[in-house]
């Protein structure tokens, strides 16, 4: 199992009022930390319930979006070609967003890489080790243009046999939905292994301090950021590797092979879904184009090459 690329570090001393829970969800360890402070009677129970609901969203999003469960909504969609399929709000919005990022990044980010991922031996759920193989007639190459949305009837139509991979959207989305549950408490952190949201300030009353992992040296940080009310996501080539040829888990959808030239991408944005998707897109685009994408969409980011060169947006200095 890989170590977290980012972590609110070091978790500062906690008062007794702090509430901190960890659960294994979506193939990673999700930690929720609500900072204490003055509490009215009964508020402790409310916090517990809110944290429970926050975790609940991870399960809900995974159930809908996982590639590793033939019965998930996204996998049931894959078996139907040329048929408009009515889907849940969750799936519709997630796919709509993924397609928008695909368009915005010129296909560098593409949610239709699911089958290519599967054939390249990224077909195991890391938690259970469960393997999935889908019979698809995928002789022709597919792209995000093969997915049609109908906003009126809320349907998705696949024009070719394909598997949607919402991996770069789902985890961020779950973090954002959990964030909405915890927003009322102002000061909190959600850490879902590489996708974080930091609300308000840490127990010391300061902005949360986030360590960015060194892409080549384990247990070492290459940078640290101070953020408040922002999502931070890092994507690294050290995360998961194919059992076939040791290539890493981010594919260039336009070429069908893993990308070289970037070791890790960190994005700071208003929500984790956006940060995660753009980190993946920038990974494929490469450092220079990646930074241009961030600037155009007004998010901030840090891209590190395998040679440890750093590319940053101008706004990143705010998080020092």
């Amino acid at each position: 199992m890989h170590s977290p690329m980012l972590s609110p570090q070091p978790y500062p001393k906690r008062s007794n009022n702090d509430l901190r829970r960890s659960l294994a969800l979506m193939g990673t360890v999700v930690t929720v930390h609500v900072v204490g402070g003055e509490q009215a009677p009964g508020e402790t129970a409310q916090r517990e319930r809110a944290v429970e609901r926050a975790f609940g969203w991870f399960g809900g999003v995974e159930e809908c979006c996982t590639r590793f469960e033939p019965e998930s909504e996204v996998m049931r969609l894959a078996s139907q070609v040329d048929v408009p399929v009515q889907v849940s709000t969750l799936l519709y919005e997630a796919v709509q967003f993924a397609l928008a990022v695909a368009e915005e990044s010129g296909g560098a980010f593409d949610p239709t890489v699911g089958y290519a991922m599967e054939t390249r031996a990224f077909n195991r759920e890391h938690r259970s080790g469960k393997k999935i193989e889908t019979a698809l007639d995928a002789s022709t190459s597919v792209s995000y243009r093969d997915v049609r949305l109908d906003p009126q009837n809320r349907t998705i139509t696949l024009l070719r046999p394909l598997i949607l991979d919402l991996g770069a959207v789902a985890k961020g989305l779950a973090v954002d939905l959990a964030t909405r549950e915890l927003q009322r408490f102002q000061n909190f952190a959600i850490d879902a292994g590489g996708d974080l949201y930091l609300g308000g300030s840490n127990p010391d009353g300061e902005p949360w301090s986030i360590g960015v992992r060194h892409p080549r040296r384990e247990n070492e940080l290459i940078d640290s950021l101070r953020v408040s009310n922002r999502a931070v996501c890092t994507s690294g080539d050290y995360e998961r590797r194919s059992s076939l040829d040791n290539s890493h888990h981010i594919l260039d959808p336009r070429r069908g092979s893993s990308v070289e030239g970037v070791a890790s991408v960190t994005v700071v944005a208003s929500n984790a879904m956006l940060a995660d998707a753009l980190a993946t897109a920038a990974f494929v685009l490469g450092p220079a184009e990646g930074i241009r994408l961030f600037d155009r969409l007004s998010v901030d980011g840090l891209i590190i090459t395998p040679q440890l060169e750093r590319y940053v947006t101008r706004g990143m200095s705010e998080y020092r």
Partner: protein
Amino acid sequence: MDKSTLLLLAVILAVFGASVAAGHPAWGTFTGIAIILLAAGLAAGTLPLDSQAYFDERIGPSQRISNSLITLSSAAIVAIYAAGYHRTSPAAHRFDSQALQQPTATIAAVVSPATANPPTNTPSASSSATPATKKNPRPTAPARKPAPAKPVESATQTRYKDGVYLAWGSCPHGDIEVSVVIQDGKIASSLISQCLTRYSCGWIAPKTPGGGLPDLPSQVIERQSPKVDYVSGATESSYAFADAVAAALSKALQ
């Protein structure tokens, strides 16, 4: 703008247009007819205007590129959250499991002071009641002294202790205080005692019931449970309300 306001505006414009056409030769009939047409257009526009369609139009694929991804992603998160994938009121479920465990606890609490030393009974009972009585100066705990036989009967079903219980629930746009009255072990009334949300609590608890609007306090009495419907367009407030009721009822179990 509200649909009814638009419609009213259209009617006023139409009347004004008619009066111009009839009574102002200087302005001429043409101007009058133009105003009437404008009013008709306004009225026609208001009728099929569906808020969901309007929303779709704004974030639909045709304008996707021009809209920033920041807006699109925030809108998506809000839409999914509002649709509530998993929220079949886990707060209420949790409360149910608490309630199931509760009867045995009640018996233990009642039996032990009766067998051992009665004086400890009074402080423990009053301390559990303080959160309610502190906020509400009118004490309403008539049946505070439980006969040993009574709780044993109540072990078969959830029975609350009589009294008035106050509790808060909060959401990102404010707090709601609910007061729940328990009589004869049942929820006799529930109402929003303080509404400190940015939006009116009339969306979840209309002042005059029966207007077709969702009435969450009545649902609590009907269902004898904090499991209320979540009101579309006021989900946060509904949630705060349900939280508050669950909190108040858990006090009534102690």
